[in-house]
């Protein structure tokens, strides 16, 4: 007699957006194990048509509040590529600093507020305010500082204001950057080390599950690639970002308002674990030591470890932010105006790492610098097929457990990807069908 299982989690909690987990096993035969994305579609690609190049990043930032900085960076890259706008080294450094701040903020939010409650068997972060106040206060302090980087450099951490095509509308002052640097060294670094202690104590509760897949992230020669680089597949190596369509193959599936993607296999993974697998050799020593303590080894095939990879990466973001500020101040801050004189009109591509993985924007502009066509490929959308494939391997492996345990393990799996469903539908609920 094979097992029967029917799981149906509607509007999964502690994720960004709306999704359902649906699992259906009859007499030991797994008929369905998938994440249904039910987020209301936004139709951004359609809304962008006819819009001025000044508005592209303002609009696409609104795809997602949590990833707004990443969308803006990617949008600006695509617009600058399409219109031939050169940007200064200072602009690149400020954008890299912003990318670190946003990655740090998001990773801390996910690890402490969305994932840790599972490891402590509570339903949200709020009970932890009473039971683990020092941990919650530390998480809030880390988030505050990460957001302050966004406030200082981009005018506002959620939906940044000052980054525009060709540069910035306002350059931060030397004093503002020095204050951030001091706080990174005096607050963030000790808080990061304490975070590693906390996560080490919780890491035992991370499920032991492995499924090797294709890992795709940016990679470049000079640094741990977040802001820019080549597209790198663990299966087939590096290609130019302009090849992004070949490296995503976005297609519609009926159970998800977010499209699915595949390249060399039936699915691939993007995000912190993919970055770790492809780029761990570019991380700073503090992050590598943290990885060792948290049991994260190169070529890790356990998707639940994505949360740990996010924590490891946070240390790198903090320390590299200090290095970037040093570089900015050593050169002396220049009060530059953004370069907004197009030198050509055509198609351009942006590729950047946002906390949940690699993000692509592509725009085509007419001779009035208005958008004719737009395409955005979102990390969570790229992960959906991989999540479905994980669930199809996981359910038969844990089928002897109680339905509650299986449900929790499936919810934790989806949460480990830190999905951003608003983004992907430009989602999450669990449905078990018995």
């Amino acid at each position, binding site marked *: 007699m094979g097992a029967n299982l029917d799981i149906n989690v509607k*509007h999964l*909690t*502690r*994720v*960004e*957006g*709306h999704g359902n987990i649906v699992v259906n096993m009859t007499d030991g035969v797994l008929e369905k194990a998938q994440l249904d994305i*039910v987020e*209301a*579609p*936004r*139709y*951004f*690609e*359609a*809304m962008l*048509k*006819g*819009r*001025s190049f000044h*508005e592209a990043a*303002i*609009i696409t930032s*609104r*795809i*997602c*509040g*949590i990833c*707004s900085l990443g969308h803006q960076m990617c949008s600006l890259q695509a617009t600058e590529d399409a219109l031939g706008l050169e940007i200064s080294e200072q602009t690149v450094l400020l954008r890299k600093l912003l990318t670190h701040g946003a990655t740090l903020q998001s990773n801390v*939010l996910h690890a402490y*507020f*969305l994932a840790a409650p599972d490891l402590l068997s509570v*339903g*949200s*972060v*709020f009970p932890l*305010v009473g039971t683990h106040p020092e941990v*919650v*206060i530390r998480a*809030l*302090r880390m*988030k*505050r500082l990460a*957001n302050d980087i966004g406030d200082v450099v981009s*005018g*506002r*951490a*959620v*939906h940044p*204001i*000052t980054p*525009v095509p060709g540069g*910035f*509308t*306002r350059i931060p002052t030397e004093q503002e950057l020095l204050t951030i640097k001091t706080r990174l060294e005096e607050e963030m670094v000790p808080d990061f080390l304490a975070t590693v202690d906390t996560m080490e104590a919780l890491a035992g509760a991370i499920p032991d599950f492995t499924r090797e897949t294709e890992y795709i992230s940016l990679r470049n020669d000079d640094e741990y690639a977040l802001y820019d680089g080549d597209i790198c597949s663990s299966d087939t190596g590096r290609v130019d970002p302009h090849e992004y369509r070949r490296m995503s193959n976005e297609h*519609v599936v*009926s159970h998800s*308002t977010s499209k699915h993607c595949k390249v060399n296999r039936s699915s691939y993974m993007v995000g912190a674990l993919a970055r770790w697998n492809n780029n761990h050799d570019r991380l700073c020593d503090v992050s590598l030591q943290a990885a060792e303590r948290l049991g994260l080894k190169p070529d890790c095939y356990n998707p639940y470890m994505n949360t740990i990879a996010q924590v490891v990466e946070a240390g790198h973001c903090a320390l590299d932010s200090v290095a970037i500020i040093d570089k900015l101040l050593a050169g002396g801050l220049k009060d530059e105006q953004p370069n907004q004189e197009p030198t050509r009109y055509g198609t351009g591509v942006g590729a950047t790492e946002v906390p949940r993985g690699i993000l692509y924007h592509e725009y085509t502009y007419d001779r009035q610098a208005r958008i004719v066509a737009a395409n955005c490929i979102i990390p969570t959308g790229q992960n959906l097929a991989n999540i479905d494939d994980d669930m199809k391997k996981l359910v038969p492996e844990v089928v002897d457990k109680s339905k509650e345990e299986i449900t929790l393990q499936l919810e934790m799996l989806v949460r480990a990807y830190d999905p951003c469903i*608003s983004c992907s539908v*430009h989602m999450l609920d669990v449905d078990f069908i018995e």
Partner: protein
Amino acid sequence: MANKPRVAIFDFTGCEGCELNQLNFEDQLLDILAHVDIVEWREAMDDRAEEYDIAFVEGSLSTPDCITRIHEVRRKAKVLVALGACAVQGGVNGMKNTHPIDEVRETVYGEDKYLFPTLPVLPLSAVVKVDYNVRGCPMTQIEFLKVFTSLVMGKTPVEPEHSVCVECKLNENECVYEKGMICLGPVTRAGCDAHCPGVGQYCTGCRGLVPEPNIKGMEEILVSHGLSVDEAWKRMELYNAVKLEGVK
């Protein structure tokens, strides 16, 4: 209120940036939690509730399911507060309404366009009674705290009715038009302390229109500063397309 108010937070069609801004109250989050019981918040917790004193609702309405859900939220809530531009006036989602719906669906989903139902975008107030607004994209945290504190203390929050230009003048900002840029400050409702002009950007109109806005006058200003009539309307419609339907 004698007991702690029971608060629930909901998200409809939007980016969840306003909700994220609530988790970003790093300095005040613990104080806020001391004064209310959060009984439902899908983005942050597992619990679900049957009724609540205050519902904060983010996002606009854009599918049949959204309409069913907002009626349920309204039924269970004593006070309903719209959070952010999408909920208050339709926000960026409203731009969808400026294109033929079939073309919109085909642009994104191609020949699979009929798989997913969609409606013209509506703000919450088009379907249910909204008691208070917290405006902006994203909602501003200071304003949220004002509304939140007022409600917890049993007072009535008051919305500003003047334009962003007034706040720019009070802050002694150089007029954005003097810098050779355009700006929607003249028709945009204040309350943000003219934050964007303060950091070198133009006002994009995220807080919605002032009561009785002079749209024709705004169009003339934009056109006199180099935009075509079509471009002028596109700029005004960025956050306010739903409100401007039928005005053009």
